[in-house]
């Protein structure tokens, strides 16, 4: 697991910032002086520190004695930071949040913790708080992201709850990162209003996909899983509206005890009613948040739903749909559908078991969420 936030950073000189400071890291000591105030200089070996940077991060232990203002020795846990990464520095306590890592396999940005659903397996339990600073931070971060970044993600909470800022963020991503795919998670319910779907479409982002969960093939079960009446209808109308506006949509199905039995029926429902969606992801449970506290109700060993998984993949693939299996180790996926499995887990929370050391398929395997290591399938076996 990679730590994305650390407090045990120590200032080595006076800090002049009074507000949190979001900036991009560079290791170029020759950066023109005029640019330095908006950059963070990263020092990994003990050499002279150039003047004028907005912040200096010292990532070594030797003591040089003289530091310019705004120099901080960073926590051991953040020593992976590199050029092009973007961080947020809190001057009051020295905390550093890592917002963007160039080398990450995925960079996701939380838009809000608020949500209009309350999913029984939510990995990011909603909190009804004013967290509008998250959008402001992201608007400040997007221009700093390396333009060759393959993909960024917006996540929540329910991303559309940030209102007009939602469109502003998509516009900003398009303006600053025209070659970067944008993947947005939403429960889709707010897209039941066609005008919101149209506003998204009007941005004309060149590579935008909205990932929307559908957990069941009928309303009662879906509404129960997301703990919201009418959510099934609203989500479906949202998907139809987005596709009507030619916005790409991905359907995301988290599989657990409450819905695995009807997974093939759900696949038939999708293939028949939503054949035009752009991707379907069948996803293993991430055991954190509500999924962790409700685990007794939700847990089913992925090995024990392997037949349903295979049927569901076959039904949708046969219909010509693009299907993936996420968050599920290859050894518990039936062999005939293993080629649909993706390495779907973000690198910072991705781990493997000891058993996996001997596995020939490890390089292609999703592995586990770090927090799933305590409750892996009973059938994990090196291939």
């Amino acid at each position, binding site marked *: 697991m990679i730590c994305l936030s650390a407090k045990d950073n120590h200032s080595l000189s006076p800090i002049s910032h009074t507000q949190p400071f979001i900036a991009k890291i560079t290791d170029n000591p020759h950066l023109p002086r005029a640019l330095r105030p908006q950059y963070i200089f990263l020092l990994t070996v003990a050499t002279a520190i150039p003047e004028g940077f907005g912040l200096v991060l010292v990532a070594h232990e030797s003591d040089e004695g003289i530091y310019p203002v705004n120099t901080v020795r960073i926590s051991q846990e953040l020593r992976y930071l590199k050029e092009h990464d973007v961080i947020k520095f809190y001057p009051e306590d020295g905390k550093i949040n890592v917002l963007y890592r160039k080398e990450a396999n995925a960079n996701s940005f939380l838009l809000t913790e608020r949500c209009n659903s*309350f999913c*029984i397996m939510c990995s990011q339990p909603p909190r009804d708080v004013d967290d509008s600073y998250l959008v402001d931070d992201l608007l400040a971060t997007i221009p700093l992201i390396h333009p060759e970044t393959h993909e960024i993600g917006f996540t929540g909470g329910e991303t559309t709850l940030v209102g007009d800022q939602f469109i502003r963020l998509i516009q900003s991503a398009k303006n600053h990162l025209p070659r970067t795919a944008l993947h947005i998670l939403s429960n889709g319910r707010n897209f039941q209003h066609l005008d919101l779907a149209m506003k998204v479409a009007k941005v004309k982002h060149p590579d935008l996909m909205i990932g929307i969960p559908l957990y069941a*093939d*009928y*309303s*009662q*079960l879906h*509404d*129960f899983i997301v*703990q*919201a*009446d*009418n959510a*099934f*209808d609203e989500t*479906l*109308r949202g998907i*139809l509206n987005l596709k009507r506006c030619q916005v790409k949509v991905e359907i995301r199905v988290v599989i657990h005890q409450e819905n695995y039995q*009807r997974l093939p*029926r759900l696949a*038939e*429902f999708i293939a*028949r*009613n939503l*054949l035009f969606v752009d991707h379907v992801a069948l996803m293993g449970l991430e055991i954190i948040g*509500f999924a962790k*506290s*409700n685990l*007794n*109700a939700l847990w089913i060993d992925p090995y024990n739903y392997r037949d349903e998984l295979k049927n569901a993949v076959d039904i949708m693939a*046969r*219909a*010509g749909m693009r299907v993936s299996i996420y968050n599920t180790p290859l050894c518990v996926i039936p062999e005939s559908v293993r080629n649909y499995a993706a390495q779907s887990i973000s690198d910072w929370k991705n781990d493997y078991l000891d058993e996996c050391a001997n596995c020939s398929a490890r390089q292609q395997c999703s592995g586990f969420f770090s927090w799933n290591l305590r409750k892996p399938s009973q059938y994990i076996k090196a291939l």
Partner: protein
Amino acid sequence: MSLLGKKFKGIEAFDQAANRTYQLLPSRFAALDDGRYLLSNEVGEYLVVDRKHLESYVKKQVPHDTDFYYDLKSKHFLFDDDSNVAIDLLALKYRTKAQRIAQFTALHLFVVSLRCDYSCQYCQVSRQTDDKVAFDMSEETADKALDLVFRSPSPAIKIEFQGGEPLLNFNLIQYIVKEARWRNLVHQRDLQFVITSNLSFLSDEVLSFCQEHNIQLSTSLDGPESLHNSNRPRPGKNSYQLTVDGIQKAQNFLGRDKIGALMTTTERSLSQVKAIIDTYLENNLDCIFLRPLSPYGFAIKNQQAQKYDVDRWFEFYKEGLDYILEINRQGHTFVEVYTQLIVNKLLSPFGQGYVDLQSPAGAAISAIVYNYDGDVYASDEARMLAEMGDKKFRLGNVHTESYEDIWLSDVLLDTLESSLSESLPMCSDCGFLPYCGTDPVYHYATQGDVVGNKALSGFCSKNMKIFKYVIRLLESDSDARDILLSWVRS
């Protein structure tokens, strides 16, 4: 007892259909076999159910919290107060299925010559000896027909050259292909060509031309040499050899996917379906279409069609399909085309382009025929009927009638109006309706009425048998199901 945390409510809290009632969505049913029924909805989703379940569904007595209830709900046979998005989705599915009607006429058949070097007993068109230039289409007629072709709004246009033997008028084929491609520079359609030929005159010149213009070939192969030669007599008694030589030549020259073969079933075919299929395998063909003998043209005159009834043909089809499934089980993919079409109709949300199984009928709005003399017919069968002297389905002539005259003619509109299964007796309440269609020309030819009495209809009887057989295979034989599904894999 829920294992969920206290903050969460149980599933019953989210069932707004608390009065436990439901409403039926449009659906139909039909007996499948002893005790089982096919239940289909307006857009062709289906369930196979026993009588007890069927009755409880219709009487609105299916209890909630059963898989059957949620199967019915998920496949849009019912809706309850918890959700009404089913109506939106059904509308979308209906539109998807009916989309082809808006696209209109895609297949345009040009009878470029009525002459033929064969003298087949069952020939569906009146044959003419091969020296009568009077039975060739002229360039002037072809030009007029092309005017009509490009009036069609269809984004895909397929021009099929028929006969007689169309290669006897190869010059005109060359003219039409070049002229159509030239015109298409403006029209920008997805333009394709097919030549339906016995391959007797498949010269290198013809092959080069096909290569250059990406033209598909379609031929007739009835089975083993003796059967083929007796079905398709020609001077020299070498029709089989000429055909298989032509198939091989085309496969080598153009690629295997550029040549297909169709078979015609005669009484002599009925006892040798395996040998017929083997002939297709030996000639490296990937599929076969086990066709019934059509009741038109010379076939009906000779009373051939009556010599075996639908039951006998169906035994032939069943034996053939079983053999084909066996071939697939042995690891070789080989497809029976009609079965493939039926499986597609059963499982796909899209309407299928097959002209003979559509409602409204495909006549003129899916396919249209331009005869050598410029007469326009609603279908190939309509032309065959005309060659026998009954011009009931002649829609006009390219030299005297306009596009509007032809496609808005009373003959065509009346025929189409009589071809909506949804409003026809014995069709409107049939569980197989979403997969079936109507064939007004067939029913006119056999019963003298475009609607026809379906109880006496060979068309109805044949298709019902096939639907039931294919559905039983899909539902009861997982091995066969896998094979059938692999045929429709997109």
